[in-house]
């Protein structure tokens, strides 16, 4: 008796599953419809990468903006999906392969977004910029999101990359903030001689080492030399680029970088600086909250941190106000979105509000011009914002400038150069080959 009952129950479960599976195949089309029309409300799907757990400040800003937007536009509903950085990158790729990008999402600039733009995935946002953002973006930020003269992303953040240093360690060894590269080498040597780790570097992530290389290339060969090598009006075997690689090798041989840097991630390397085991750390200004506003860091440590501009190189063409940096992430609108106009309106709104709130709430420097007159800010922010105002040049991160294939070669070669598996000559040669192959 019992068996028969169990049997029929199992059978109905089996039947249900078949039905559910059969239903799967048609569910995509019905999904799309509900995406554009949820009762009377227009639904905009928005995917971003600031989970509450790891990027609370950004998460809160976005969340507040969405709430405000929905209040102002009662007929619109913003449906969010939130993923961590790496998962986001993977998922967006899978979604675009199956033509199911969210209406609004986050993208990186230049080389990263190129395949998406070429595949016709992103909508041009020139009209949004023209009607909403006259002269509001910091020069050079929207350009990074432009391909063939059209802009496909609205930048949110802007970063430059200073060298942070521990004032206490510097004082202990009577060191001054270096302004020339020779002075800098002297600092490194003094620290290394005293068994203090001069520079912490998480080169497992490779773009970290790339920033050191980019700065040396800039200071030796001027702001154009690396960019020209990448856009093929120059060569990666330019003497300045070889020289920069040689300086890296010299720095490694001096013991300038933390032990085992090629096996450390950026987060692990950061730990050395935060624990005061290393004197210097080159990283973009997205680290600023840790030295100013973050409640998780002690005031005692925050007071010890200062920053300086990457020193000038004797006989080099680059000046001290030239920075490695550029816009971080930006927002795109899907070309295939059924609610494109509404999505564009939302993106414009989000970027506007973000600009107003991000400095004081998250410590993020927005890509729009900031009016600092009536907000109270930490001194380090004000200094950085001033530096940005007087910047002579921003060189976008090399791996972002390059197409993804070449970027991988560049990053791999950075690790080999730092690890001593490739000589400076091999380093430049391999990248020249990769760039030439792509032409």
């Amino acid at each position: 008796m019992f068996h028969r009952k169990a049997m029929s129950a199992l059978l109905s479960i089996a039947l249900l599953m078949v039905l559910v599976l059969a239903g799967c195949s048609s569910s995509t089309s019905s999904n799309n419809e509900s995406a554009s029309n949820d009762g009377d409300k227009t639904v905009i799907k928005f995917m971003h990468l600031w989970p509450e757990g790891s990027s609370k400040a950004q998460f809160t800003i976005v969340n507040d903006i969405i709430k405000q937007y929905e209040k102002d536009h009662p007929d619109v509903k913003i449906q969010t999906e939130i993923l961590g950085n790496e998962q986001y990158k993977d998922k967006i790729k899978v979604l675009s392969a199956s033509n199911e990008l969210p209406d609004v999402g986050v993208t990186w600039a230049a080389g990263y977004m190129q395949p998406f733009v070429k595949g016709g995935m992103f909508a041009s946002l020139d009209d949004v910029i023209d009607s909403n953002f006259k002269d509001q973006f910091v020069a050079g930020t929207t350009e990074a999101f432009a391909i063939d003269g059209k802009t496909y992303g609205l930048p949110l953040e802007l970063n430059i990359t200073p060298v942070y240093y521990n004032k206490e360690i510097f004082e202990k060894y009577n060191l001054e903030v270096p302004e020339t590269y020779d002075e800098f080498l002297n600092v490194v040597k003094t620290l290394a001689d005293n068994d203090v780790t001069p520079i912490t570097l998480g080169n497992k992530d490779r773009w970290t080492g790339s920033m050191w290389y980019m700065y040396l290339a800039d200071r030796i060969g001027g702001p154009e030399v690396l960019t020209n090598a990448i856009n093929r009006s120059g060569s990666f075997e330019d003497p300045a680029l070889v020289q920069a690689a040689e300086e890296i090798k010299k720095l490694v041989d001096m013991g300038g970088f933390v032990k085992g840097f090629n096996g450390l991630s950026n987060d692990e390397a950061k730990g050395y600086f935060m624990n005061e085991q290393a004197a210097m750390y080159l990283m973009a200004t997205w680290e600023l909250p840790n030295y100013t506003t973050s409640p998780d860091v002690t005031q005692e440590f925050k007071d010890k941190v200062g920053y300086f501009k990457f020193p000038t190189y004797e006989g080099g063409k680059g000046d001290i106000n030239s920075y490695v940096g550029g816009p971080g992430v930006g927002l795109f609108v899907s070309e295939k979105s059924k609610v494109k106009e509404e999505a564009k309106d939302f993106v414009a709104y989000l970027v506007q509000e973000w600009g107003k709130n991000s400095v004081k709430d998250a410590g993020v420097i927005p890509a729009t011009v900031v009016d600092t007159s009536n907000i109270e800010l930490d001194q380090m922010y004000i200094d950085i914002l001033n530096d940005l105002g007087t910047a002579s040049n921003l060189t976008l991160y090399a791996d972002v400038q390059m197409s993804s294939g070449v970027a991988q070669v560049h990053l791999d070669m950075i690790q080999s150069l730092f690890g001593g598996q490739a000589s400076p000559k091999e380093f430049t040669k391999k990248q020249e080959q990769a760039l030439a192959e792509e032409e």
Partner: protein
Amino acid sequence: MKNVMSNKWVITLYVLPALLLILILIYIPIVLTGYYGLMDWDGIGAKTFIGLDNYIELMKDKLFWNSTYHSVLLAVFSAISLIAYLVISLILASKIKGAGLLRKIYLIPMLLSSVAIAQLWLKIFDPTNGMLNKLLEMFGVENTPIWLADPNLVLYSIFIPIVWQYAGFYIIIYYAALKGVPDEIIEAAKIDGATPFQIAYKIKLPLIAPVIKVTIVLAIVGSLKYFDLIYVMTGGGPNGASEVMASYMYKEAFKTYNFGYGSAIGFALLIICLVMTWVIQKLTASKEDAGY
């Protein structure tokens, strides 16, 4: 009951849901992977059919063979460590004091996720503050190794947590199999004056041979497609020194936007795994258990 089970419709209904799931989630993607492998495709734009070009290029790709070599090395390493697991299980299964506690200790790494294990071992391997190097310094080693940053060491450094991670899994399998060996046989052997070593070698091992065979297949195929711990701990670096087939496939498909080429690697990986399974089956086949 019997009637129900012999009804063809009922059988179909039972088999169908699982079959459908397996088809949709496993077999169709496999076929698709092979198909994408024939394309020049960045994963986003238009696909171009290029025939076997990806596979031909794969045959000439040094990086691919390099990563295959690393995968095979890991497989050999795992297969060898099975011997250690077996010895541990033999000891645990004989009635020693505290066997229960030891069994739990061995099993615990299995309960952690790979990412947690990776984080744990990253801390242990940290060149300056890590437990391992601190320990070495205590014993007076001056130039402590930079485990994960040294291209000659990184692969072996990573094998250790992998072996550690799976110890519990295999020990439990062996332990269960050994517990299934009837006591009477062992009693009889003891009466005949067999030493514990003879009992293990001549009675227990032959009796659990099918299980050993299964674990060899599991260990080797598992090693060939191994990905997560390596991806989290080194990302295949430094400079490809710890790249394995699966991480290379991931890199090509998702980082370099060579989705077609990545698919070709994935398909090649599948074929290598199938061939290895077949070879192991052939090598270890005995007359009694021909075929499954």
